[in-house]
């Protein structure tokens, strides 16, 4: 960010607010571009993973090699699709909901360090900010479900609200565990801490447990199977986005895949070393070398967790509403607290676990 401001200053003589605004615009534009390209790739990947798990081939024709352009074609189709607003829907709310949904998740990405120095804002509240801003998405979903004037949509929205609000507790509590060890909300601190010590997943069994709890509850936050109740296809047709089509529908899709990305990225950054390579100390490297390698390493870890999310989705049946709730409150929340307190005790006495 600072580098960008400096660059603008040098190149165009921009200063102060103007340079800041320009830098923000470039950052936001590049993140938006990244999100779009990533989502297309992730959708293609999802279809491929699903197909190969299900002994199919998935898209094979569009674009030549293994149908790589299928998502592009789909995106173009969605762009040119007729924009339908149901007659008795609340037009303004119906119109604004996808934007609200997308904003929440999208905003979370601005604090993410992709590599050394590749970060829009090095916010010291990083993790907390992501969790907080992601909760806006629920409002968007409720608006969508309510404004569609469809019973299925309303059911989906209510389910989403109940589920996501409930699962914020185990998600946040599980996140507190590595925060407790590192002592900071800042995402960059996790990278440096793990570069100096070891990956947090190996720190103690409680951290591994917290990682598991976070991963499970982040699935619920992303509305992924087995917690995809808000859009439970076999029950609610398509849940809260039943009435959406075309571009607006694609916003919900973008949101889902971006939130998957954020969840996977948080797992990778907080527990699995972030952009650090295992067994290799990259802190002394030249930035020109460390930056691309860092980005590749982080994205590789992230995509591994995205793959696990997809793998789970195509393996498990869907839970029922009350079971999702009881799982959250009876199993995940208590164990998240156990992990938190146990980690505090563990670290207070400075016990080790694995020979690291």
């Amino acid at each position, binding site marked *: 960010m600072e580098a960008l401001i400096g660059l603008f200053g040098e190149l165009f003589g921009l200063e102060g*607010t103007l340079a800041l605004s320009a830098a923000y615009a470039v950052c936001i534009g590049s993140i938006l571009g990244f999100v779009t390209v990533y989502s297309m790739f992730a959708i293609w990947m999802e279809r491929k993973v699903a197909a190969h798990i299900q002994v199919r081939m998935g898209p094979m024709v569009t674009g030549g090699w293994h149908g790589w352009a299928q998502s592009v074609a789909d995106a173009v189709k969605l762009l040119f699709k007729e924009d339908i607003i149901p007659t008795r829907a609340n037009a303004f*709310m119906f119109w604004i909901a996808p934007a609200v949904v997308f904003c929440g998740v999208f905003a979370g990405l601005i604090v993410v360090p992709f590599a050394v120095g590749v970060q829009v804002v090095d916010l*010291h*509240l990083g993790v907390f*900010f992501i969790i907080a801003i992601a909760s806006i998405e629920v409002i968007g979903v409720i608006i969508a479900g*309510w404004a569609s004037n469809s019973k299925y949509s309303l059911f989906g929205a*209510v389910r989403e*609200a109940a589920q996501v609000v409930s699962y*914020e507790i185990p998600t946040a509590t599980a996140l507190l565990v590595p925060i407790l060890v590192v002592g900071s909300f800042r995402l960059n601190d996790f990278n440096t801490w793990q570069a100096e010590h070891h990956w947090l997943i190996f720190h103690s069994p409680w951290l591994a447990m917290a990682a598991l709890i976070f991963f499970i509850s982040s699935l619920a936050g992303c509305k992924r199977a087995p917690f995809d109740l808000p859009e439970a296809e076999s029950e609610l047709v398509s849940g809260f986005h039943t009435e959406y089509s075309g571009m607006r529908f694609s916003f919900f899709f973008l949101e889902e895949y971006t939130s998957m990305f954020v969840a996977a990225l948080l797992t990778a950054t907080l527990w699995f070393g972030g952009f650090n390579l295992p067994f290799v100390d990259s802190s002394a490297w030249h930035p020109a070398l460390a930056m691309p390698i860092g980005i590749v390493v982080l994205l590789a870890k992230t995509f591994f967790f995205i793959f696990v999310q997809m793998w789970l989705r195509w393996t498990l049946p869907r839970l029922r509403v009350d079971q999702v709730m009881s799982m959250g409150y009876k199993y995940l929340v208590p164990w998240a607290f156990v992990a938190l307190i146990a980690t505090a005790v563990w670290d207070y006495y400075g016990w080790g676990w694995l020979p690291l």
Partner: protein
Amino acid sequence: MLDFMFVFFAAIALAGGLVMAFHQSIVHSAFALVAVLFGVAGLYWTLGADLLGATQILLYVGGVTILLLFAVMLSTRDAGRLAIGRYILMAPVLGLLGAGLLRVYQGVIAISEGRELTLLEPEPTSDAIGQLFVDPHGFLLPFEVLSVLLLVVLVGAVTVARQQQEGTPDA
């Protein structure tokens, strides 16, 4: 930049507040409340209270308003629209209140007149707040007391809900 953001968030809060107060549909009002809370969170942020702002978003925008929306959407249809006329009698009281508030603001402006207002670059506050929470000479006791209170409230809520269940016929 920051003063621009301040104006921006204040505008969101104000516009949301106006819609919330004057919109006929209670659901719309609830959604407008979300805008208000979000705008206020942004104001906190620009004023340097970033932890407070984030907490505001997490708890109020993402939590409390959703409960509110639940209550509004799931209640009976009659409550969906409010007749403003019924509250017309309250207008003088509200007017008096408004006048009082104006007077207060006038006082605030008078105090701050002549002083140079500078918006500071926000400093991280979370460390200090965290220290205060666990500091025996800080807010450890109130914090713990509040936790116990919340626990009691939680247990109470469960008890009340359980009693109602047992009371329902054909259970």
